């Protein structure tokens, strides 16, 4: 992998951009297929920032102010901490007054990203091919570049959103870690992201190891240091060779054992340009070591050898690294083909559909069959339902937990299937709920969050699409998956109405109005052909509700006459 990255020559180009930077905070340089944006490593003046150790972290989302990177925190990964100086420098560049001292807003900072980058992307989206954006920087500049790359995941110019999205690549040279385990998790969720952050670390560069090993006495605060974690792909290099590592624990270990002698602490800045140049020349030399073992072991010892570390002196580390590789390998191979899982889910849907059909033959809606549970097949359904629920909960969660970088989280065919699943299975969950006496208010008390999410995604999709006249035909599945919950609630209301009326309560207008609202809701479904015809079977919960309601009726509406005249029998 290291060879591949080296062979692109991008590392050298990025480095030259960094060194050519002088006073300006950033530079933009086009190179044909890609454009390099280099960030300066000189930190902007920080006002009012505490310099203490514990305060090195900025927690996102911050309670007091919002950060442009808040989107990285997701449902199952709520806290993310970021190196505070890097974050300030980044915000400063972004010209975001929320976090930086307003007074310090230089004009040059405002000039920066929006204008420059938007122009850049606009220009390129015209000739079809988009440029690949490469953000580079050394030391703190690299940290800023990394934060900027993260920010870009969400904040692309409108033009580039339509085109095929090219994730920016970020190259840092000798930058310290910028975040904690939370950031690491956020990145690792998207497999692709890992390979878009390239951290170049030289063998005796102190800066990138800043948070790996406690350096100064003042830094030794228990717990504080251990919290910085690496992410992305590490390109470790020395005059002897180079290697790529992306397992975070292995990165930590390697940085630790290749740590720099404190005596060298004040050596001059590490010259990545010279090392990269040397490495290029090294390709022509042959490697003649004789490691032994299986291919993973050999690969790893070659990696260590490239760093000038003698493999045999670190057998323990080798074994540990090998274990990690093996675990990753096993996990990758063991991961079930998503298409296969999807297909299995479809099979369960087919079984459910057959169940619906059987119920219909008995002039029952499957909702009522499942609620009453008179036949053996009603119990078989529990199984299909559980399998499907598990599959979709997982799928939705997975999509939800990716830092949301695009507007439609699920691909079309998953979205359609998800909608079908919701319409078919949620009534079963509702039936499960209301078959227990005294249960009420499913929508607020019981509804699983993945249904809510699936519904929202579907709505977004519908909104994004031009309305096409649909065929006027009753649906096989009622469009509103919560229809039955609303019917049950209406039935409860009618009961209440009846009870209170019999007790002589005269203040019934509120209840009646609510029931009228429900009428309106049903009427709309009927006129849109959005109900399944099976709703009107004589024994259905809906018809039971109607019979009760009819006896309490004091008004006429389109809906009531539709029902009274028996027009519903012709609904199809």
């Amino acid at each position, binding site marked *: 992998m290291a060879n591949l*990255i080296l062979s692109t020559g991008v590392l050298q180009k990025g480095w030259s951009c960094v060194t050519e930077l002088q006073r300006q905070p950033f530079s933009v340089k086009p190179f044909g297929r890609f454009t390099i944006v280099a960030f300066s490593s000189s930190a902007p003046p920080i006002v009012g920032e505490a310099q203490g150790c514990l305060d090195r972290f900025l927690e996102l989302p911050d309670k007091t102010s919002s950060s442009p990177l808040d989107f990285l925190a997701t449902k199952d990964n709520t806290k993310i901490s970021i190196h505070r100086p890097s974050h300030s420098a980044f915000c400063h560049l972004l010209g975001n007054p929320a976090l930086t001292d307003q007074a310090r807003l230089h004009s040059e900072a405002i000039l920066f990203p929006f204008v420059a980058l938007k122009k850049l992307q606009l220009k390129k989206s015209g000739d079809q091919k988009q440029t690949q954006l490469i953000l580079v920087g050394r030391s703190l500049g690299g940290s800023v570049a990394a934060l900027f790359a993260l920010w870009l995941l969400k904040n692309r110019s409108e033009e580039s959103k339509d085109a095929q999205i090219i994730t920016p690549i970020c190259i840092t040279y000798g930058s310290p870690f910028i975040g904690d385990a939370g950031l690491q998790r956020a990145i690792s969720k998207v497999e*692709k992201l890992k390979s878009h952050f390239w951290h170049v670390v030289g063998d005796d560069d102190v800066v990138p190891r800043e948070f790996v090993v406690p350096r100064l006495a003042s830094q030794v605060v228990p717990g504080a240091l251990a919290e910085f974690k690496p992410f992305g792909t590490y390109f470790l290099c020395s005059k002897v060779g180079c290697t790529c590592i992306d397992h975070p624990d292995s990165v930590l270990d390697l940085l630790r054992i290749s740590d720099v002698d404190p005596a060298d602490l004040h050596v001059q800045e590490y010259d990545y340009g010279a090392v990269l140049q040397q490495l*290029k020349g090294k390709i022509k030399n042959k490697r003649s070591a004789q490691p032994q073992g299986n291919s993973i072991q050999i690969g790893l010892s070659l990696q260590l050898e490239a760093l000038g570390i003698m493999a045999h002196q670190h057998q323990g580390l080798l074994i540990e690294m090998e274990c990690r590789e093996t675990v990753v390998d096993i996990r990758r191979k063991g991961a079930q083909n998503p298409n296969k899982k999807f*297909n299995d889910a479809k099979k369960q849907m087919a079984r459910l*559909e057959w169940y619906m*059909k059987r119920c219909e033959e008995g002039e029952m809606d499957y909702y009522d069959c499942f609620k009453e549970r008179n036949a053996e097949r009603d119990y078989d359904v529990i199984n299909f339902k559980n399998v499907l629920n598990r599959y979709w909960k997982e799928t939705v969660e997975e999509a939800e937990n990716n830092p949301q970088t695009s507007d439609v989280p699920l691909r079309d065919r998953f979205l*359609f299937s998800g909608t079908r699943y919701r319409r078919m299975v949620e009534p079963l969950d509702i039936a499960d709920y209301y078959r227990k006496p005294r249960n009420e208010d499913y929508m607020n008390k019981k509804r699983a969050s993945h249904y809510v999410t699936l519904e929202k995604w579907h709505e977004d999709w519908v909104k994004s699409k031009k309305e096409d006249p649909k065929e006027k035909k009753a649906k096989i599945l009622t469009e509103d998956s919560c229809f039955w919950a609303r019917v049950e609630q209406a039935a409860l209301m009618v009961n209440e109405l009846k009870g209170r009326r019999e007790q002589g309560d005269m203040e019934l207008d509120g209840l009646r109005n609510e029931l009228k609202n429900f009428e309106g809701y049903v009427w709309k479904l009927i006129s849109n052909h959005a109900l399944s015809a099976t709703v009107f079977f004589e024994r259905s919960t809906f018809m039971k509700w109607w019979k009760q309601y009819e006896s309490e009726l004091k008004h006429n509406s389109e809906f009531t006459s539709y029902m009274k005249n028996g027009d519903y029998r012709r609904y199809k």
Partner: protein
Amino acid sequence: MEDDDLQLVRKCCSLAFRAHDSDAHFVKDNSVGSQPIFAFQGSRSVDHWFYGDQFSKSKPYPTYFPSLKALGSGDSGILNLALLQRFDQILLDSQSRLPNEADRTRKKKIVFTGLSNGGAAAILATIWLLETHRRDPKPDVLCITFGAPLVGDKIVGHAIRREGWSSCFRNFVFPRDPIPRIHFCPRDEIAGDLPSVLLSRVAVNPGGSTPRTLSSASETNQFSEKLFDVVFSSAFSIASYDSCVLRSSAGGGCLLAAVNGLVKLSPYRPFGIFYFCCSEGEVVKVENHEAVTQILFHSLLLEGSSSGSNGYQTYDIKKIVPLDNLQTIPLSANDKDDDVNSGPNILDLDMDARLNLIAAGDMEQARKKNLATVNGYKHDINACLSKLQTYCTNCDDGIGYYDAFKLQQHKADFEANVTRLELVGHWEEVRELVKGFELPDSFETNREWVDLGTRIRVLVEPIDIANFYRHDKNEETNLYKADSRARPNYYRYPENWLRHMRGLVPEADPLWGKEWNLDSCFWARVENMCIGIKKKGFDSEKGTVLEFEKEVEKWLTEGALSERELKRPTFHKWWGMLPEEHKNNSRIRDRMVDEARPANPTVPN
């Protein structure tokens, strides 16, 4: 290689040199037994090396190369436009002399040969000959090249191997000859140095009358150091990239994608058998194409070996050492069990190179393993197919299985749905492997699989279509059409396979079975017309209807479509939507008439 073959190689080599600087497009020689040899002229014009974009990509290429694509997906390969245009010119200019000559000698073994650019012409001529005789028994043709550049990309190589043509190509290459790697480089980086290189090469020895032996050192000096550097680093990129593909660990795929966005790598890859001519007459023979790519880079490091084209003429093959059993290559030259004269040692490969070769061997093995896995599915697939066949037969007396499935009224319909999903699950897995080139190259022309795929398509696609319109999926996506996204790829692939295979076999072959002529999207077309007529009226669909009726008539006549299908509810619904005036003039009116008007009084007795 037998002595006779060595004799032939020597003969070809001297002919190739003669042809390289001759005035004619090719030189023909009949002196070796019954083998006519065609040697192609070389070229020093830069336009004959690089043309068009950075990598001289051609797309699409001439119709005389119909096989050079990935069959299932239909993705076409890339040929080098500069080399292709030159060959096209040869075909054209020779006023079909080449076709005629080739034709006249058809019964015999034909040999095409060439040096450098002439070698590329020989390769294209060989493919051309093989393509022209696709339906005949495979012509006995051999292609022997010396220091030829690469002509095609990964897909072209895949197609060559799929058709079983790989062994026709014998490429002799010096470890440090830049020409076979020249198309790894982008034009801009190399074009400036190219003319001088091309001129200084073979021209040193015009006519070839007095062979001059050149030391390897002075030969190297003929190329600018810069050119060699560009070739070297381009080859390094390619080898690193491919090695990443071969040894891709967990994140490898994403890194490859990231790198792809940064640098445009050359698409060209080797195919055929490669002979690396090392010092002292030792020749290493490599067949695995992925291994060849790696060696094309790693052998550039081989010290003291010949690099100029002239060397080929004086090179004396003493021994040919096959480099196979890639998986068991020892990791270092000092291994005790290792033979000093083994391929990797002759090529002086380092550990990195050896790891890559092992990975290439592993990959080949993995493909075979996948094939075994997939073959294991055949039983299940066939079981599903026979269940669905029974379903289809049972419905035949009634409304037909298309409409039965759409209505889903009986248990059998439900069971058919589950069977369909089971079958599709397996079949989709097979297709994904095909798509990722994870099966042996010959898979898509394996008759058994083509037959199986076609049976699946013909029997199951109507069910998928019924399912599609049963759920009104057309309201979510677009219509189900042969080329729309709504149609699953697992039907498109076998359809392309059959089309290709039919081009290879005589019409009497079972693959030409009439029952396979019916468009498997038949019912989708009927449904789409109904939707169209309903939405926009008959006039907007008129052209489609007329075209469709024409095809229906053809299918009825040849027996691909049974008249029963015309009585099915969906077909009837369609017929009912057509205006009377159109129906009266319809070419299938007679076939429909009894059903449409059961007791038609106007029909005379």
